[in-house]
């Protein structure tokens, strides 16, 4: 880990020397390790190191400028900063004068794992996955770990620092049986690689792959659906991002209105040590605090950064998103963290078995893939309340039991309608920590399916 703290101090000092009236710097340093495997081969065994600095500057003419620099020499940095401080930009961004705390340090423990341990874990996963059944033809996946540091420093003397570590393992097993292909998925995230249960992940993925073989057709239409945590997280995370985040669809939900059933409560709790990415401050240096977004189905609060707060005559809630990817979870697109980043969906009472037993005829969905989620929504972007997504791990539940597997299905459904149609929220033992989201299973009435896709090898 490089000395990001002293770099922050030097950069702010340089900005002052070059005539900046105000300057704030957000520095990050990432040390990542990724091992990807398939076909019994480690296809990628890689170390990644990255540093970057986002600068917000106010020049002598009171113009606001943002700059992103990735390590360049001191001389180059000086040249670039001299040049941009002359520029005549204006972002009307609020200044940094309202930072509440002068200094904040949050140090988490770091992981030290040797290369050969990663290799051991890969073969552990492959062996455990293949032991489940002879029908398992391949066990693929990735092990990821990150040691990260974020430092915020500005000309007002504020200095904030956060260090965190994280690991994830994702496993996708492939099973084959007389021309049928079954695909199974499992993953786990933790702040420490030592807490990840590699055997369990591999076995779950392989069991799912085998139980996904020989899927039967389902008449397209609407079905009550049990979404396991991964899928439930995508649905609730998308809804929250679309309606509550800083980059939101302004009138998607109104504070005080009913957006869901009474069993639905969602909080953002950035300081909770149970979450995978506790964040003591946002990218503007505003200290974070818990915020209830949905309280028993009623819209309670929305998020603000300084700029939006200025427009709406309120204060920042500490939700200015980081520009670099702060997550280490096993999502398909890791560059799509949900905002706010530490959502907790309050659990209900039922366990996974009882949620299944309660259904006479329903679809059970493990995960959504290639979901057309309303990401990156800006207040002035085209509105779309329709969620399009393909399922991965799909079964029919009949008379309280999992009857057989189904093809991958395409959901085409109103996101707000799905939230309003949540009829059950799973208990605490159905919660999965997914990086940004801490979500139990949910059951949603009348989800519309418009296509099915065969994942077998035949064309």
């Amino acid at each position, binding site marked *: 880990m490089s000395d990001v703290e002293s770099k922050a101090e030097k950069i702010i000092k340089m900005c002052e020397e070059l005539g900046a009236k105000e300057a704030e710097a957000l520095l990050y340093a990432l040390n990542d390790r990724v091992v*990807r495997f*398939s076909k019994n*081969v480690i296809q990628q065994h890689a170390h990644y190191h990255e540093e970057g600095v986002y600068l917000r500057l106010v020049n002598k003419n009171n113009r606001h400028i943002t*700059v992103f*620099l990735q390590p360049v020499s001191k001389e180059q940095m000086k040249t670039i900063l001299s040049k941009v401080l002359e520029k005549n930009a204006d972002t009307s961004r609020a200044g940094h004068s309202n930072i509440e705390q002068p200094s904040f340090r949050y140090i988490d423990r770091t992981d030290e794992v040797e290369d050969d341990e990663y290799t051991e874990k890969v073969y552990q996963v492959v062996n455990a996955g293949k032991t489940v059944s002879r029908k398992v033809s391949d066990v693929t996946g990735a092990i990821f770990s990150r040691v990260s540091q974020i430092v915020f420093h500005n000309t007002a003397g504020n200095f904030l620092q956060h260090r965190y570590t994280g690991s994830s393992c994702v496993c996708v097993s492939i099973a084959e049986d007389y021309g049928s292909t079954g695909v199974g998925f499992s993953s786990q995230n933790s702040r420490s690689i030592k807490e990840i249960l590699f055997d369990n992940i591999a076995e779950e993925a392989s069991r799912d792959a085998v139980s996904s073989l020989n899927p039967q057709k389902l008449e397209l239409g609407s079905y009550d659906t049990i979404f396991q945590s991964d899928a439930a997280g995508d649905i609730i995370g998308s809804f929250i991002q679309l309606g509550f985040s800083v980059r939101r669809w302004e009138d998607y939900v109104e504070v005080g209105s009913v957006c869901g059933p009474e069993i639905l409560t969602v909080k953002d709790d950035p300081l909770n040590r149970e979450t995978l990415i506790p964040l003591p401050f946002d990218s503007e240096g505003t200290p974070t605090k818990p915020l209830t977004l949905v309280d028993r189905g009623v819209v309670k609060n929305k998020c603000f950064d300084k700029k939006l707060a200025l427009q709406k005559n309120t204060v920042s809630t500490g939700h200015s998103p980081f520009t670099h990817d702060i997550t280490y979870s096993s999502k398909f697109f890791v560059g799509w963290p949900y905002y706010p980043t530490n959502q907790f969906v309050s659990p209900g009472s039922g366990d996974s078995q009882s949620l299944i037993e309660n259904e006479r005829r329903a679809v059970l969905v493990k995960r959504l893939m*290639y979901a057309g989620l309303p990401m990156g929504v800006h207040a002035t*972007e085209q509105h*779309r309340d329709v969620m399009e997504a*393909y399922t991965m791990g799909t079964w029919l539940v009949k008379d309280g039991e999992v009857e057989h597997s189904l093809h991958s299905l395409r959901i085409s459904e109103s996101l707000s309608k799905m939230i309003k149609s949540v009829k059950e929220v799973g208990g605490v033992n159905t919660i999965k920590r997914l990086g940004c989201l801490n979500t139990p299973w949910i059951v949603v009435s009348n989800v519309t399916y418009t296509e099915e896709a065969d994942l077998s090898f035949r*064309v």
Partner: protein
Amino acid sequence: MLDENLATYCVNYALDIGADYCDVRVYRLTKLDITQRFQASGSETEINEESSESIGLRVLVQGCWGFSGTKTPINKETCRILGKEAVKSAKSQKPRKKIELAPVPILRKRYEQKPKKNPAKVNPEEVQEFFAPTVNNFLSANKHVISCISSYTGFIQERLVITSEGSNCFEKTCGCGIQIKASAKVDGMMFSRTWPETLNLSITMQGLEALKDYELDDGLHRIGSELKQLQNATSCPNQKLDLILAEDMLALQVHETIGHPCELDRALGLEWDFAGSTLLTPENLNGFKLGSDIVNIVADPTIEHGPGSYTFDDEAVEGRKIYIVKQGVFVGYLSSRQLSAELKTENVCGSMRSMNASHIPLIRMNNINLLPGDWTRDEIISDTKEGMMITQPSMEIFDQRRRTFIFSGEIGFYVRNGEVVSAVKNPVYHGQSVDFWRNCDAIAKDGWRGYASGCGKGRPHQRVLVGHFCSAARFNGVKAGVES
């Protein structure tokens, strides 16, 4: 110029400490992004300057891969750290199957694009002045438009690739692009129109002089009129019809249902854990009828000004044009040296690229182009009895093998008896990839140009610029709307 001595030192150091093979990449990127938001109440500008250097070292030790890359400052010490990390991670593996590389000629290339005006060094005021007067006039004249966002991006990228086999290649390229997105509210919902129609800005690999070709007034006038039409537009019909895809929409269709499926890493099962697989599995190569006879698709990194053009890839393999689909038959994969060897083909086409040198190279699209046909765009419209034309992608979804898909655009136009009769809001179509391409019955010969797309893949996620050259085309019997 990038430090070739440092890169050579990195290669030699890796060989000294045990690498059997290695390649090193050094990138430098200088990028300028300017975004202006215009509303009746005023405007604001955001300027982002990016300047980065990166280096990555990939090694093979006893048939196992190791890699280390960094965006931290580059010096000899950095090279030694990378060497140790890459070799150590390769040595830590117990090879169950040795990785081999298909042989390629040693390549020595030097290419430096010489733009008339450097697109990364433009004065922001110049860009602000390019947009502001016209956009402000447009907003005054179109009260139904709530906001306009204009974007400019300009960049210069330097790439150096050196391999232990003796290849040594350097390339310096530049590009720039602009875009305007205008938005209006219709019945409480926001609708947008984008100009020029594109997938990711209208990036072209040229200097700032390329901007003179854009006719801002005409473009804004058209999207303003289309936003007005959307106020009275009909909803998307829920029926089978003949679908005419405008060039930008077709670029997306090519990207998702041809470009990604022809990546050999997907075909061999190496991407199941994140990106998924493909319908184009190896047994289908050189025989499978993927499209109608008029469908010809090439991967071409050599095309002038192409968003995905390059002279060599990240394995120092010369970029060359190959057919992916010839007269409707699937004939080629995008591949790497490793996977070409695995497939036992010597057809290494140079498709390995990374987002920056600190990331591992992956098989990526370059310019995946649908070759022009015999029709004109007007002839296709006038020959259509009942159909819909769609432009400007707004949503795309597909299954893990990309056999089925659903796409939508910003605006559609209903076509009846050869004439455009009305605008359609939220146009959506869906289908099966193979049926779709087999039902392509007309491709335009005019309007063939490149569309840039930012394409995501890999773990960690990497986004690279790719291109698609297309002209409009028609597809019979496509399902529009969503059955629910």
